[in-house]
């Protein structure tokens, strides 16, 4: 609930904020803190406000933080949830493949992702965008239509490219973040610490794939649709005003399961696996098919590969 409490308190702080020169950061922080305290606000709200960067939390502190986040979610949604902080396994670099010959543009991956990752239903957020392209023009993002709505897919003369986070090895979004709220995990997953993000949206401008999404309003997921198996970097509830993105379903893949989009695909167009394992499906595809990445000229070196099987 600390999130909600914060919101309720904000107007009180608002009066003083417009006149504040930035050198008074500390004062403002102290002021906000004082406001929190004075309005009889919970200890939890103050804890949330002062929460450290994920990588600086000690194991005990992390436990307290996770317990608080679980409690908040339970109070708000009335559902018992568990938030994992499982770290990357050694010797793993996740990679994904997408077979453009098979994809029929049905968007089942989009809906599977929404469900699995607790994406906001009101103020809709979708981590996957499926683009419809004319076959005659080939892959040309400038000429793509994400809002196609025919009676039946695939449409004659068109093919489809689902695009989500490409989990780049050289992610431009990471270097532009002014507060290190987003980084590349050892297994290649680009994650966001939702409690550290300040919502400046530099990463959204820097991303060449439109993969980052902002919580413009308060995200909402009906309790009955809430997926209670969560990960700190993944599908746990996000505060308003922060950036989120595809995490390769970190709460699943770190447990050895497939991402939801891969399971949802009815034609088997989506592949997933460990790029460091020669026998993995994704490596087999790279061996037998010719793969390409989106916007290769930007040298972002995605771990998300597109290929044609036919």
């Amino acid at each position, binding site marked *: 609930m600390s999130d909600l409490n914060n919101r309720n308190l904000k107007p009180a702080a*608002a009066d003083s904020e417009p006149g504040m020169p930035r050198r008074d950061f500390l004062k403002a922080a102290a002021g906000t803190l004082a406001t929190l305290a004075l309005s009889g606000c919970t200890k939890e709200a103050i804890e949330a406000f002062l929460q450290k*960067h994920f990588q600086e939390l000690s194991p005990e502190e992390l436990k307290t933080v996770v317990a608080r986040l679980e409690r908040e979610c339970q109070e708000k949604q009335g559902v018992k949830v568990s938030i994992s902080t499982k770290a990357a396994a050694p010797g793993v670099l996740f990679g994904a493949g997408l077979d453009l010959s098979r994809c029929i543009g049905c968007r089942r991956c989009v809906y599977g992702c929404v469900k699995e990752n607790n994406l906001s239903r009101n103020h809709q957020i979708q981590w996957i965008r499926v683009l419809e392209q004319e076959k005659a023009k080939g892959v040309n993002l400038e000429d793509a239509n994400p809002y196609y709505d025919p009676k039946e897919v695939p449409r004659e003369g068109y093919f489809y490219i689902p695009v989500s986070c490409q989990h780049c090895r050289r992610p431009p979004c990471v270097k532009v973040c002014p*507060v*290190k709220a987003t980084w590349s995990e050892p297994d290649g997953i680009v994650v966001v610490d939702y409690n550290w993000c*300040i919502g400046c949206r*530099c990463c959204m401008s820097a991303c060449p794939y*439109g993969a980052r999404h902002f919580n413009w309003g308060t995200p909402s997921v009906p309790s009955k649709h809430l997926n209670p198996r969560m990960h700190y970097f993944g599908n746990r509830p996000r505060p308003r005003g922060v*950036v989120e993105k595809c995490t390769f379903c970190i709460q699943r893949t770190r447990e050895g399961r497939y991402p939801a989009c891969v399971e949802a695909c009815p034609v088997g167009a989506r592949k997933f696996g460990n790029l460091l394992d020669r026998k993995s499906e994704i490596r087999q595809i790279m061996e037998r098919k010719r793969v390409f990445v989106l916007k290769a000229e930007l040298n972002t070196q995605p771990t998300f590969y597109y290929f044609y099987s036919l």
Partner: protein
Amino acid sequence: MNKVTFRELLRFGFYALRYMFTGGPAYYLWLAFLVALALWGGLAYREQLTQGLVATNMRDQVSWAFYVGNFTFLVGVAAAAIILIIPAYVYDWKPIKEVAIMGEILAISALVMCMLFVLADLGQPEMVWHMIPSVGKLNFPASLLAWDVVVLNLYFLLNLVIVVYLLYCTYQQRPYNKYFVVPLILLSIPLAISIHTVTAFIYNGMAARPFWNASILAPRFLASAMCSGPAILLILFQILRHTTRFEIKDEALWKIAEIMAYAMFINLFLQGAEVFKEVYSSSEHVVHFNYLFVGLGHHRSLVPYGWGAVICSLLAFGLFIIPATRRHPVTLNLGCLLIYIGVYIEKGMGLVIPGLTPDALGEIYEYVPTMTEVRIGVACFSIGFLVYTFLTKLAVAITLGDFNRNMVAAGDRRGRPIPRPSTPD
């Protein structure tokens, strides 16, 4: 030499504050007007805090817009103080040296507005403490926004120290220590260039956005800043000349206008070079230029602004390059207004919106600011004007000798705390 003691400085601050709130009816009316606007916008900010940034028309496709555009424009205004500093302190040109402090005050006010616009744009404004080095986790030197935080704050502090120190010395009726203040003033020249360069680099470094990813961007930022900031100063100088006994020589105004003409020439030339490269080679990246100047299909809402900015800048260049028109008060002010409009569009939303439209996956989302955004913008500007009014009132009074320690002491003895202001301001 007298040392600046903390106690004395505090006393000065107290009397200065009292003086800032003393004036004729016109002055109070002006203050009330600004406060009313700030409140009107402040209420909109309260709305934005309760709803989130959904109160704006920014969305995932166009994720930066009105606030960031205004921020960018105002960084230019702040950087432009050096157009007074260089002739005044490097070339020791008297007529401008007398008014150089006004440029520094403008820089302070513009930076206050910059910071307010950034704060208004944040999704989690209470988390700004994450940016404080060592307390938070500033991503320096990788993130250009982190650089911007550093240089903007340095430039702000530097100007604040210079202005307060100079005013304090004059108030104490003693000469300033030039070994202390002149190096600071000279340091403000590279810093002014750096704030604008770093701000340009924030955009420039994004390979995902071809419209910004052009090496000509930073030079263009500087050239246009050398026009927009002085345009505001020229108008302010004339207001000061009319309302106070503060003397500003015509020569100073004309020299500034002349420098602006050269800066505008460079800006237009660089823009022309950019347009040629984009349009002649006509790669797929030209789509952003087309969105600004031709429109994409029925998406044409930016076209009048794109051309409006170019036409304003061209006209202003004409007016300022011809000596007769830059010396005539009517054409001089018209030129200033045209430059202001031209650069406000070009370095504001005319830079941000086409950079993000079409978005990275080719989608076109036509952005128009909401009333909430406009009101918050008005609040930021009126707070900046308040800061400028206060500082200028103080600076004028101190420079003219209407406000100094003897008068304050005399006033105190007579039981009249504040000397009568000689200016309605």
